[in-house]
């Protein structure tokens, strides 16, 4: 039986879709059978982040309305064995899907896949309720900013009231240089405030934008720091005990490399 993990945040634009794409791809590369479900109806993006936008025929709403069979709507990612995408509908609204239908869908997907990763829309309305309805676990994504952490706190409360216990935290877009000079909350600060377990820290990394441009998740890029962070998170999801990567050392390493190649350190 597979496990349903929802990637959520409250605040928009903090990296849910990026996280979904990277974790999902990372799990598939590790030999798991994975399906990514985009529940951001009307604002679908996971398809382009994954580079699968040209292959969509049916979508999530078609599946729950039974316009097509589930198998027909699943897009197989030809690059990675065992990786599938169920895209969101683009021209419908969030109320086209009900929580009960999501629970039914998740139950069906659990039979077939090891991991079902759900990309949640921003906000706490219908789309959020749909996304979390069938989930076993939740990963809450935040950035080290007051508004994002505040919204994450609210999401954690709502998850709790929906009996999704022990959500895990990803702090995304961390800048070690800013933390060092006291201009960005540290991981300890954020974990201290939110009081949930940390599953990973992802540095702010321009490779994310480059890989999103190409539709190839950074997790498969061995040179990307964010990619390394996502590989670590993937292992932790599978139950491995991986120490947190030291953003400072890697930072030093990176600047050393840059110096080696004659690039001025940022």
């Amino acid at each position, binding site marked *: 039986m597979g496990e349903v993990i929802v990637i959520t945040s409250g605040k928009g634009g903090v990296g849910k879709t990026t996280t979904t794409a990277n974790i999902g791809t990372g799990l598939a590369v590790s030999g798991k059978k994975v399906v990514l479900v985009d529940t951001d109806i009307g604002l679908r993006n996971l398809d382009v982040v994954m580079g699968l936008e040209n292959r969509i025929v049916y979508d999530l709403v078609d599946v729950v309305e039974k316009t097509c069979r589930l198998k027909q709507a699943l897009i197989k990612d030809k690059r990675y064995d065992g990786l599938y995408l169920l895209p969101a509908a683009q021209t419908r609204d969030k109320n086209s899907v009900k929580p009960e239908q999501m629970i039914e869908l998740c139950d069906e997907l659990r039979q077939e896949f090891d991991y079902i990763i759900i990309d949640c829309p921003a906000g706490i309305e219908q789309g959020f309720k749909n996304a979390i309805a069938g989930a076993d676990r939740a990963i809450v994504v935040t950035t080290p900013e007051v508004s994002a*952490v*505040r919204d994450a706190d609210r999401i954690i409360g709502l998850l709790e*009231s929906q009996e999704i216990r022990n959500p895990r935290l990803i702090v995304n877009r961390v800048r070690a240089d800013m933390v060092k000079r*006291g*201009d960005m*909350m540290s991981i300890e600060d954020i974990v201290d*405030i939110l009081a949930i377990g940390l599953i990973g820290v992802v540095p702010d990394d321009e490779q994310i934008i480059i890989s999103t441009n190409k539709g190839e998740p950074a997790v498969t890029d061995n040179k990307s720091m964010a990619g390394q962070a996502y590989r670590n998170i993937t292992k932790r999801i599978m139950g491995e005990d991986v120490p947190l990567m030291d953003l400072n050392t890697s930072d030093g390493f990176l600047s050393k490399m840059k110096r080696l190649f004659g690039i001025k350190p940022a």
Partner: protein
Amino acid sequence: MIDLFKLLLGKKESSKDVAKERLKLVLIHDRSNVSPQFLEMVKSEIIKVIQNYMEIDEDSLDIQLTRTSSEDGERVVPALVANIPIKGMKNAGR
């Protein structure tokens, strides 16, 4: 407390410390809205403690999380306001 000392000594706070303080305050209020059970828990604990010493009127007891202005009057801070009518003292309290 540490932050208070920093203020007294006129030491410049880093922006992350400011962020952390602001977050903590705003979350006190947010969290009480998320779970009404929270206040009920606080309420019953307070009742337990006070009842060791006094007889109180449980039915008209009122506890609220609100905002008030800080001592220097410059900021709005969250405050726990309790109105607990006392009926009498218990022996242990005398």
